[in-house]
């Protein structure tokens, strides 16, 4: 059994840590590329959301490398993600490229289902070892997010963005290869030391909140590397969702008490008083939070036809008006053009800078 799983940003590092320490044989799909998109788009339903198409492309490419089993997460609605696996399986079967699918999701009837699935993947391994593997993967998730957070902070400030990217790449690669927690701490220390050698500009910098559907927020390929584009335009980006927070919420059910999304739902209540699946309510709530914290703007990303985010997008103008925070929404799919995105981002940054300047003059 050779297991593969879809890409979502740096998720591969975390899942690889988990599976290899459980002794599972795995085949990582090649990094998401134009070819992945083409494969996915060719076979996926036309109006399916972008992540489904990319995942499907990942699976097909992994299959070429010899994978025969897919491990992925599921859900119980109302977001379409919960039915991805079934549709993808149907498509793969029709193509004559059947693969086994193990979908980890809240069980319909009893938790035994989940247990059986885990046993099917890892075989006869003690629960203590499974626990240790999960803990190890969790450390990696935290380490990855620490690096990402630092990079988001430094990008607008550094004079040498390319050196920073190089440090980031190195750090992520070393985290991926690290075999215990001590090593990871060392990597983070090295990374911080490297960053300290970078000469920095002095502020103030525009601050932008980055909100939206999780896959498009976390996967730089899907959002056309928007975080980096904004950083290079001199904007400090704050993400509303981090990988570790997502793992904590969805897989551990909030056991570890990392800052989660509950308080954000409360902030969203005056505007959107019901959950709408996916991250719709979180998008509205995070925008309110960024508004309260005096951010200069919010960039909102979502896959084209994403239902929860369309609801959120409909509501954002009201939030924008109440808190005086401009928002910009991007719907992303295979048709999005890089130049168009860059132009819109530049215009948005100019607008925010002008607003800030105007406010400064008013306060004088």
């Amino acid at each position, binding site marked *: 059994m050779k297991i593969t799983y879809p890409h979502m940003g740096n998720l591969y590092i975390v899942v690889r840590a988990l599976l290899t320490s459980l002794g599972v044989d795995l085949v990582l799909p090649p990094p998401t590329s134009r070819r992945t998109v083409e494969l996915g788009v060719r076979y996926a*339903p036309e109006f*399916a959301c972008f992540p489904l198409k990319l995942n499907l492309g990942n699976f097909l490419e992994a299959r070429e490398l010899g994978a025969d089993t897919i491990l992925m997460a599921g859900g119980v609605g*109302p977001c*379409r993600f919960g039915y991805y696996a079934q549709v993808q399986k149907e*498509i793969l079967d029709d193509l004559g490229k059947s693969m086994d699918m193990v979908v980890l999701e809240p069980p319909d009837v009893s938790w035994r289902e989940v247990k059986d699935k885990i046993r099917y993947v890892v075989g006869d391994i003690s629960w203590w070892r499974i626990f240790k593997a999960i803990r190890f993967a969790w450390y990696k998730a935290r380490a990855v997010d620490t690096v990402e957070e630092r990079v988001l902070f430094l990008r607008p400030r550094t004079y040498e963005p390319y050196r920073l990217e190089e440090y980031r790449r190195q750090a992520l690669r070393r985290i991926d290869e690290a075999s215990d927690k001590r090593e990871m701490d060392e990597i983070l220390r090295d990374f911080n030391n490297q960053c300290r050698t970078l000469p920095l500009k002095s502020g103030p910098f525009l601050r932008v909140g980055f909100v939206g559907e999780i896959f498009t927020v976390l996967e730089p390929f899907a959002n056309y590397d928007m975080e980096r584009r904004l950083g290079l335009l001199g904007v400090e980006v704050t993400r509303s969702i981090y990988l570790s927070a997502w793992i904590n919420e969805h897989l551990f059910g909030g056991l570890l008490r990392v800052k989660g999304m509950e308080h954000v739902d409360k902030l969203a209540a005056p505007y959107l008083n019901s959950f*709408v699946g996916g991250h*719709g309510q979180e998008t509205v709530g995070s925008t309110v939070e960024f508004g309260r914290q005096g951010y200069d703007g919010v960039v909102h990303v979502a896959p*084209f*036809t994403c239902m929860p985010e369309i609801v959120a997008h409909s509501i954002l103008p009201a939030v924008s008006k109440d808190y005086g925070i401009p928002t910009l929404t991007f719907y992303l799919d295979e048709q999005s053009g890089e130049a168009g995105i860059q132009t819109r981002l530049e215009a948005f940054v100019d607008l925010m800078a002008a607003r800030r300047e105007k406010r400064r003059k008013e306060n004088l």
Partner: protein
Amino acid sequence: MIKVGIPRALLFYYYYPLWRAFFTELDVQVIVSPETNKRILDAGLRSALGEACLPVKLFFGHVLELSDKVDYLFVPRLISVEQKEYICPKFMGLSDMLRARLPNLPPIIDTAFDVSERRGFDWPHFFEKVGSIFTRDRHLIKRAYCSALEADKNFRRLLNSGLLPPEAMDAGKGMSEAAATSVASQGFLKIGLLGHPYNLYDSYISMNLIGKVRQMGASVITAASVPDDLIESQTKKLPKRLFWTLGKQMIGAALTFFENEQLDGVIYLTSFGCGPESLVGELVERWAKHRANLPFMMLTIDEHTGEAGMVTRLEAFTEMIKRRKKHENYVSAYGKPVHCC
């Protein structure tokens, strides 16, 4: 007399008889927006988000049409009408979208209907909340929802006997099932129509699809006529329980159609960018091909749809079926039936 407005869109096609009976019994006047026309659609397109689907945009139009004529707008927040299932996310945030985008609306009644809220939550609990807005007389509310449930039962009975929802809404209690069946079973071809009621039965945005199919000499059966328990048992066959109630009705009806030997073809009407339908439609299309060997056509509508294009596709589809019917028994010397002239 207090006036409550119900937009003729989305859930109207599922629950109007239920709601109408309830409000009428409460001595509240129900005002329904007129049938869709160009003005309503344009108003909706202007006010709703561009990325929303056509039915949601249309809903905005209907709300605007009602907004200065009523005291309350009835836009209940239907989250989940069956255990572990949801209505579409856009329905769940409908009232919030309206408030955020349309200022100066009359108060919106957006009582939530969510079966997971507490054990045994059902229409009576929902109506108690809604009724308390208008009266403190609990007996009156009880009487009202009893007659509402009665009206709903009657409506579903007419649907199951083959009447289409708009016909069943107009038909009084007097309409017998025999008469209904005779309406349903005319025509040379039998075509199954799939698609959400709010697309299918709004003859403006569906460009009178049902009428057109009938004109081409086909009788029509829709998902509305498939009884709930049959849909329930059909959807048991799915690889995983489908968590959209409306999508489940479509896929259950499709599976029923596939087993119906008298059916000559299936047309699936969907709106551009419909989330659940992008996956449900895909599964139905694939299964139509290799499980049922049934002619299948997917029609996607949005505000730009041209009527001529639709007519052409419908003609081609029905022609194809007619030829297939005619030559079905022709077996070529090489052993394969040939569906051509």
